[in-house]
């Protein structure tokens, strides 16, 4: 086994089995780090907790809901607004967050009474919102507050409201992934099957494991609408509470982030017989194949092909422009979970970069199996790294850019490695054909940032050139390109809008496809 031992972690020998270097001839039977285990004492993990995984990642992207944390106010604050899962209702769920603000006296005397007061107060403050989620936290779990009982009381007193209770306190698992699992199953057990939807198409899907980061979901919904597919619910980005109660009526579950949402797909398969089709919205080939697969399932592949042809013709010249300039750039792909495999192969094949390392904070070995498979030889795969290991890896690997979260990203910037936000994006959306070009543009802007060039100069030691003008990104990126490439008229940099989501939201001219029943009646 090609384990990699960090110098900084020699004092924590258990860490050695959490990192591997993929050597020549290695495959998954010889090269896979341990994963999804309790953080080893002595290592400072970058993980979130199970409460965060349930609330921040999965629960709160639901848009028409009062999201209440039953616990100290800090739990709420630290899971608020740090991820840009926007929504088309003026970002209600991003603007407002609610906490019962549990204090020491509540720990001693109980917080149920205060919880009920908070629930009623929140509904009264926002009378147009009739749905609520309540999240258990460590403190209220330990004192045994019965949130379900209080929620039941309120729903009895106010029949027009509906409340979902998520019992996923912070200590409920090794990482945020424990919370993903808990909220998936809790939603299925409590809410799925309690609303009957109106079916408007012959082709009905749930879009699962999609969180509408900077509009990703809206981009994908645009494709589905152009194909005449009814998206019954999105779990959960830009999703509506009552739509998600009707998930049991879909014909197909289309699964994007298997890490956070495969549980509900798998259980919907067992309980309701709805099959699971894994797709991948990142990258021209992966996205095109995903649309084709959905089209094949419903017998409407021609509609997918029309979209792929149109979008590829529009955006391929722009992706190619960036690919020429990003060729061979060394990338550390250090996201939280699923993007290490969503992106690992696609960015190498379609943007020409070289992934020298993947890591995951909360992923399971299954995520690493996908990530390691999709990397090339020499890549370093790390599970649940601590900050010192991250720094050591950056010093040794010398990447040109890193894709990660904002905390390790800031560390990387201080080490003068440009960083892109892999969780909330820089200038997303990154899904869709245009989104993929926007991602390439962000990578280009990071790698060739003149600011980063300047920041590499140490004003306490280096001679600062005072006789040269500022460089531009283009001057840096094109310096070594052959003239034929530099001036190739078939390629161009990004020409899309600053905000592509506004146009999608304003769009009304979707094609209308007659239902099968209408066609059969006509025949």
């Amino acid at each position: 086994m090609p384990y990699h031992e960090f110098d900084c972690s020699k004092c924590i020998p258990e860490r050695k089995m959490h990192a591997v270097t993929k050597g020549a001839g290695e495959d998954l039977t010889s090269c896979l780090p341990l994963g999804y285990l309790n953080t080893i004492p002595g290592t400072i993990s970058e993980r979130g907790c199970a409460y965060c995984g349930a609330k921040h990642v999965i629960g709160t992207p639901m848009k028409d809901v009062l999201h209440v944390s039953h616990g100290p106010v800090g739990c709420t604050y630290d899971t608020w607004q740090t991820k840009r899962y926007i929504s088309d209702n003026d970002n209600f769920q991003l603007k407002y967050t609610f906490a019962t603000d549990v204090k020491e006296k509540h720990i001693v005397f109980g917080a149920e009474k205060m919880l009920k007061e908070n629930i009623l107060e929140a509904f009264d403050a926002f009378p147009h919102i009739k749905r609520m989620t309540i999240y258990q936290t460590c403190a209220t779990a330990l004192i045994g507050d019965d949130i379900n009982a209080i929620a039941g009381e309120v729903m009895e007193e106010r029949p027009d409201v509906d409340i979902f209770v998520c019992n996923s306190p912070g200590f409920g698992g090794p990482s945020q992934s424990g919370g993903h699992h808990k909220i998936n199953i809790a939603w299925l057990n409590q809410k799925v099957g309690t609303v009957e939807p109106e079916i408007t198409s012959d082709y009905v899907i749930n879009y699962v494991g999609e969180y509408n980061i900077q509009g990703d979901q809206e981009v994908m919904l645009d494709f589905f609408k152009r194909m005449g597919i009814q998206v019954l619910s999105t779990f959960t980005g830009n999703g509506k509470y009552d739509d998600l109660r009707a998930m049991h009526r879909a014909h197909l579950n289309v699964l994007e982030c298997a890490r956070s949402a495969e549980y509900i797909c798998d259980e919907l398969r067992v309980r309701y017989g709805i099959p699971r089709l894994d797709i991948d919205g990142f990258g021209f080939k992966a996205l095109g194949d995903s649309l084709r697969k959905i089209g094949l399932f419903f017998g409407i592949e021609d509609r997918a092909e029309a979209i792929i042809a149109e979008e590829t013709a529009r955006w391929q010249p722009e992706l190619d422009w960036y690919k020429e300039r990003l060729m061979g750039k060394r990338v550390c792909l250090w996201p939280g979970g699923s993007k290490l495999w969503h992106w690992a192969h696609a960015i190498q094949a379609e943007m020409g970069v070289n992934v020298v390392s993947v890591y995951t904070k909360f992923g399971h070995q299954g995520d690493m199996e996908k990530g390691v498979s999709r990397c090339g030889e020499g890549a370093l795969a790390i599970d649940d790294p601590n900050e010192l290991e991250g720094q050591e890896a950056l010093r040794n690997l010398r990447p040109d850019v890193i894709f990660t979260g904002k905390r390790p990203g800031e560390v990387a910037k201080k080490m003068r490695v440009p960083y892109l936000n892999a969780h909330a994006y820089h200038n997303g959306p990154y899904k869709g054909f245009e989104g993929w070009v926007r991602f390439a543009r962000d990578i280009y802007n990071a790698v060739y940032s003149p600011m980063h060039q300047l920041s590499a100069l140490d004003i306490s030691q280096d001679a600062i050139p005072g006789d040269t003008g500022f460089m531009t990104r283009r001057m840096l990126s094109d310096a070594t390109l052959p003239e034929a490439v530099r001036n190739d008229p078939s390629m161009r940099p990004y020409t899309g809008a600053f905000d592509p989501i506004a146009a999608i939201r304003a769009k009304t001219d979707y094609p209308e496809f007659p239902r099968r029943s209408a066609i059969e009646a006509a025949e």
Partner: protein
Amino acid sequence: MAGKEKNVARANYPKLYTSDPLAEVEPELRAKIGEMENYIMKNCLWQFNSRGWDRRTQNAGILGKTAQLLAGEEVETPTPMEKCHWVDAVMLAREFRERCAWLAGMSGDEIRAVIGKLHARIDWLTIDGSLNQELTVQNY
């Protein structure tokens, strides 16, 4: 309780291989299968469902149907799940036809034999030889 017993049974799936089933295959054929394996591992997700028993079903369903498609046989999809397998099989068969020109010169039996070996290799990589310790967890 019946549900729990079923989960235990499915988690304790039998191992099919105790070593790489392609270890003794001649290098030329091994290289051809390697092309297919590389495509699957870099581009597909269906072989990575979270539990071993589920992977067994996925691999058999999709690669079985891929062999049928490549051999020109009729493929039946009586259940939604088998339809999903067929969808992934169609995509895979198209890629293999495009990338593996040598398939065109093979008979149906030869194709089935090659895909059978590929199936064994994918089972080895993702199930029987896998280092993933979560494959035998009873629940999803």
